[in-house]
């Protein structure tokens, strides 16, 4: 284990910072594609935490969880980008603010 001297806390701190940056980006940006990229940032923050905690606890379960997160992230991107393409076909250049048909 080459974790000597580097505690899990540092990885978790980096994970928190990455998650917060991704969250702020999701709230600030309006281009749906960039919003998806911010979601990817947040998912990667969680992956860093999973792998670091798995290494800290000497358990491969963290890596298995990251594997499933990767699969679900790929699925989410496929469906999300298909939705973006479908929306842009009806009205080009649509931002997230334009898709407010379901707003009460």
């Amino acid at each position, binding site marked *: 284990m*080459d974790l000597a001297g580097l505690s899990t806390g540092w990885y978790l701190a980096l994970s*928190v910072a990455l998650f917060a940056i991704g969250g702020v980006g999701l709230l600030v940006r309006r281009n749906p594609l960039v919003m998806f990229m911010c979601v990817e*940032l947040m998912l990667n923050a969680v992956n860093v935490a999973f792998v670091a905690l798995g290494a800290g606890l000497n*358990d*491969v379960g963290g890596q298995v969880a990251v594997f499933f997160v*990767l699969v679900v*992230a790929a699925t989410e991107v496929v469906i999300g980008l298909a939705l973006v393409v479908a929306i842009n076909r009806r009205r080009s250049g649509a931002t997230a603010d334009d898709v407010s048909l379901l707003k009460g």
Partner: protein
Amino acid sequence: MAEAVFAVSAVIILAGAIGVVASRNPVHAALFLVQTLVGVAVLFVLNDAHFLAAVQVVVYAGAIVILFLFVIMLLGVDKAEELRIEPIFGQRPLAAVVGAALAAVLGTVVITGADVLTGLRRAGGDRALDGDATDIERMGRVLFGEFAFAVEITAALLTVAVVGAVVLTRRSSRSDGSETAGAARAGDA
């Protein structure tokens, strides 16, 4: 050595993340995303998760970002977005407050909980990381043993996603015809 690698990749990861959020051009955002993903892959290697590092580069930095770039080019939205104007009043300050609060809450959890987590449980048997097996071997045993049902559900999920993507983006000739007919009727009326 591990500290130096961690510090360098942490700087790369955070710089890439800020680049994704702050860049005006979606193509630049996608390239900054690649920077962050590769940095995360380095951290995986640092934690002896070599298989996940390879998957991270191939699937994430390869397939997913290329998919993003394809859609950016397909839609032609690669023009720069005007970031200076604020469409919703107070959106940026509120987002900053929410982000700071999120970081504060999660940071508190990490600081107070890190000692509880370390050394909490040492896995044995197939799941222990300090055996002779490689990380692929370990992951394979756990995935197709303990998590076999979850893997099957994942397969179903991927199939549903592919079918859903095709259905969402398909433009059938029949629906096109009825749409133009409807438009013509609307024009007549």
